[in-house]
């Protein structure tokens, strides 16, 4: 897998987000308080917000620099949103198949959600929603995985279980993975490396 390289500046309300990162086939956790710019960093890598300057590359492929700005659909990212952002008008199977039709049954089976294929998201538990969101992000066979507070939407009982599953999955897929969280314990248990983000700067 090719490494993800990021060096960007992006003005936020009260400070600038200035981040330089290099992620090999590993899980890098970015830990910081809410409002530090964590979500914006992920959105910039996914192409949902435009940095004012800098570059984003996957291996040799430029996603963003002074002259290039690939739209989100042309960047090979799987972004798992904090509150999952499942499509409420589609079944689990349709959600997972939205980005890539191939191998959906296998994916549902490997995430243990095959029995939920025809169910709408509003009928799912927190842990189930999380699995659907992950399966949907991976269905597109992305080259980078971005996880925004993957455990924050879960109650404490579910959290331990999902954290174990997620650690196992991250170990298996070996994609350059960026995980942002406010919880240092989650970071330590899930990531190979951890960096801290405060007021837009890595420290």
């Amino acid at each position, binding site marked *: 897998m090719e490494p993800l390289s990021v060096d960007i500046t992006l003005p936020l309300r009260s400070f600038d987000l200035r981040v330089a990162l290099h992620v090999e086939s590993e899980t890098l956790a970015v830990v910081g308080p809410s409002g530090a710019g964590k979500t914006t960093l992920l959105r910039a890598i996914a192409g949902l917000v435009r940095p004012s300057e800098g570059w984003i590359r996957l291996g040799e492929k430029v996603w963003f620099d002074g002259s290039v700005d690939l739209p989100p659909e042309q960047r090979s990212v799987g972004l798992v*949103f904090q509150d999952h952002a499942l499509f409420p008008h589609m079944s689990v199977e349709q959600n997972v198949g*939205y980005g890539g039709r191939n191998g959906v049954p296998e994916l549902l089976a490997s995430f243990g959600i095959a029995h939920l294929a025809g169910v709408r998201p509003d009928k799912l538990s927190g842990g189930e929603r999380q699995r659907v969101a992950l399966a949907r992000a991976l269905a597109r066979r992305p080259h980078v995985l971005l996880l925004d507070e993957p455990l924050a939407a879960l109650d404490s009982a579910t959290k331990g279980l999902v954290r174990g599953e997620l650690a196992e999955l991250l170990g298996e897929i070996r994609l350059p993975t960026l995980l942002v969280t406010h919880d240092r314990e989650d970071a330590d248990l899930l990531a190979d490396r951890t960096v801290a983000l405060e007021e837009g700067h890595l420290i």
Partner: protein
Amino acid sequence: MAVSAGLAVAFLTLPIVALFVRVPPGTLLSQLGDPAVREALLVSVKTTLIAHAIVLVVGTPAAYLLATRRFRGREALLTALELPLVLPPAVAGLALLAAFGRRGLLGDELHALGLSIPFTQLAVVLAVIFVSSPFYLRWGVAAFAAVDPQLLDASRTLGAGPARTFRRVALPLAGGGLGAASSLAWARGLGEFGATIMFAGSFPGETRTLPLAVYAEFDRDFEVALSIGALLVVASLAVLATVRLLLAWNRSPSTSPFPSARSTSA
């Protein structure tokens, strides 16, 4: 309090009830066979269908862009689009004449193309679009704005371009609100009177729509005028029921992630 509520209800319902007391259902149906009524019905159906198709085709993407893009002057533009909502209809007719009339702003260009719009069926269609499209845009923008923007982002990161995101995510999730907006706009267009009579005149079979026929028959045959009136009341009730149903459907959790946001905006 109870007295004023009672007064309000009585005042608003009495004229409608009176209309139906004067026209029993049997008479109503037979009066509708009157050639003048059939002619006006045909003109109304034809012009509102064409106008409404144009409003939907142009208005839906426009409402989506206005709801999802942030740009300078957006608020001013939204206000300008709402202006026809509060404009007196006669002034709307005057404004249309000033724009598309023989001596209007585009008069020379239209004349060069061999087009004369005022007092034709095309003028009826334009008048209906002018007064009804702000309804569709206003509530259409609200319907699209109530769709969680994160779902649109999710669609993009899953490989769907802007067009597919619009079709597969925004449109279905805003569907109920758009349907309600569409019904309101159509009802406004069907009832359109002032702008039409100023800009298109009232020629039987050509530009005389149902509301204009009510006015014309008022002098000639009061019974027929009443029947057309009753017909328009029935159409209005049907629209209201449709709007209610669509909004209720839109609020169900399987189609709307933010029921509260939608109910306050709609």
